[in-house]
């Protein structure tokens, strides 16, 4: 009888502890629990696409699928530290815990949807040439030298393959205004400043068009 009572008490204690844990997880808005993580993941995908393929709203929301986790982490930190200016993403990033951030970037790395495409097709050939060979006469290095021959990126250097046409075009057009702000030496995005200054609008558009179809 005593043993049964003890067992019941133990079960009750475990049940209570479990219930409290579940309640804590529900409240966990930073997303560290499994429940919180799924909700946060759905939140990201609401704007960036159900497969991370990106979305064309008033502002283009970039493809995250197949993106380098180190790049995603570095950019989210850049939003928080105001090295990269984007009011919406500042708010998004500053509630993410490091553990959630790592799990999210790992999740997106493994997605591989078809690119949305959409760049002007008559510009693709010029874009391919610039991507593979650069523009020696304008001192523009080949994009592939750093981003890789298949534009898959490496560590902090982003994947560009399949990125949305208007997103890449906007990034190249306003580079120094949005990224590498504040002159921090740690910010690797400053590397791109001279390159973007040496590109014409037509050349930027060509690169963005070529990348938008790349798998």
């Amino acid at each position, binding site marked *: 009888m005593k043993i049964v009572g003890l067992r019941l008490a133990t079960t009750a204690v475990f049940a209570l502890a479990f219930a409290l844990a579940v309640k804590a997880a529900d409240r966990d808005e930073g997303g560290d629990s499994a429940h919180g993580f799924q909700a946060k993941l759905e939140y990201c995908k609401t704007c960036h696409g159900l497969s991370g393929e990106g*979305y064309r709203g008033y502002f283009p929301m970039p493809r995250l699928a197949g993106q380098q986790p180190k790049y995603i982490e570095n950019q989210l930190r850049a939003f928080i530290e105001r090295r990269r200016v984007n009011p919406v993403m500042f708010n998004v990033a500053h509630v993410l815990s490091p553990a959630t951030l790592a799990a999210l970037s790992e999740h997106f790395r493994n997605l591989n949807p078809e690119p949305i495409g959409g760049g002007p097709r008559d510009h693709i050939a010029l874009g391919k040439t610039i991507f593979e060979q650069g523009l020696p006469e304008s001192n523009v290095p080949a994009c592939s030298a750093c981003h890789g021959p298949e534009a898959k990126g490496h560590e902090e250097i982003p994947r560009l393959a399949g990125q949305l046409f208007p997103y890449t075009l906007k990034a190249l057009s306003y580079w120094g205004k949005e990224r590498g702000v504040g002159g921090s030496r740690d910010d690797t995005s400053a590397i791109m400043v001279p390159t973007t200054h040496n590109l014409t609008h037509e050349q930027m558009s060509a690169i963005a068009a070529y990348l938008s179809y790349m798998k």
Partner: protein
Amino acid sequence: MKRITSKPAVLAIIMACVASPLSAQESLPIRNCTWCHGSSAQGYTSAPRIAGQTHRYIENSLLSFKSHARDNPASKQYMWGAAANLSGETARGFAVYFSELPASPANDGDEALASEGKSIYVEGRPASNVVSCIVCHGPNAEGFEGIPRLGGMGHDYLKRRLEQWNEGYHAAAEPMPRIAKRLSANEIEALASYLSFVR
């Protein structure tokens, strides 16, 4: 004498034939729309403002009434019948015509909630996974391509649309059902209030 009087009549007929293709709107039965949406298409009771709406959104909406993808009660009651025999060409004609009309804001929300609504619209509520509206609908809620203009729409219409996604209506309109389910009743009220004042 008879021949002389008939000349102006013939001329009038010819003029009418020449003039009509020049103003495409005249061939559209605009009045069928404005009976409910108001003579200047600014909306009236449950019929939303369509003046100044993005043309792609109007066209898509008309086609989704016709296909019954848009299935909330007011759509069923009024718009399913209205769009049943609509050709693609007429839908496009209506869309372009109404998108070019000037729009004025409804200004019928709760002014005290407008600043909270603006903050949700611009920033979202990242801690509770509410996404920002501005990224798709634009800084002045002006819409983009097939994404509707929301600025200055009537408070009641905006509120009901946001509520209805949570009630299971118009489920095909990704990503809005997933966005709206994160909104509380107070947040919906604040958003609808803010947007009614946006010019």
